[in-house]
């Protein structure tokens, strides 16, 4: 019986690569992993946006209307709905002048969970406490 902590670090902006989106979808998969694990084993990912990666968190993304594909915003909302911890680096948001009311929330879907704006120090600690790091 063991919990394995994972740090998912997304450092690239959305859409120019599929990779940032897959950071969110792979982290979300923690919800169903128990079917493949021994009784009592768990995986706990924390999804962290740093550097240009924080641009993934802007709300109002119209990818579905325009290109017919699920937006990164929708993936982030789904992360909140499955109660994943999602950290967004405070210093990097500030660098871009992005306010907290400009970032994704899932209130319209009834989620209580929010993106958590945290200092890089918290993300560093998350990496230190994780058994493995997945850098997207």
């Amino acid at each position, binding site marked *: 019986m063991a919990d394995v902590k994972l740090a998912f670090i997304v450092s690239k902006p959305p859409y120019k690569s599929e990779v940032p989106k897959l950071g969110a979808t*792979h982290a979300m998969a923690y919800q169903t992993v128990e079917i493949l694990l021994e009784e009592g084993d768990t995986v706990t990912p924390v999804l962290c946006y740093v550097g240009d990666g924080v641009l993934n968190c802007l709300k109002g993304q119209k990818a579905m209307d325009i290109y017919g594909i699920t937006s990164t915003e929708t993936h982030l909302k789904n992360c909140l709905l499955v109660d994943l911890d999602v950290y967004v680096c405070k210093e990097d948001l500030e660098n871009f002048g992005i306010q907290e009311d400009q970032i994704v929330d899932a209130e319209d879907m009834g989620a209580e969970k929010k993106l958590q704006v945290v200092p890089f120090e918290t993300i560093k600690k998350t990496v230190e406490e994780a058994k493995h790091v997945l850098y*997207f």
Partner: protein
Amino acid sequence: MGTLTIGLFSALVGSMNYDFALKLAEAAVDKGHKVNLWFSSNAAGSPLKGQKHLKDYSHGETPLRKLIEKGVEVCTCEACSLARGVNKTNAIEGVQWSAMHWYLAKIHGSDRVLHIGGE
């Protein structure tokens, strides 16, 4: 001896990340380690069988079949492959099909994880 799980997101041809991952997997298996290999993103196009081995291009099918024979577990992200036109009927035999939780489950039991997220 340990367990190494490699997550590979890069296409078969292009960045040579694919060649790297296959060579690293083989080197680890040859030293007696257990290796798992997960394909997502553009790597999920690579289980397509019938790849013609032309010397100007990286080739995946032959080394992949060899790794599977040596006991490497290889699994592709089903949705990622289907979106690219690769499915169980046209794929290399022995490659497993699952969802992203396969990768997380293998990571749970691994000593080392190398997540190659570059394109």
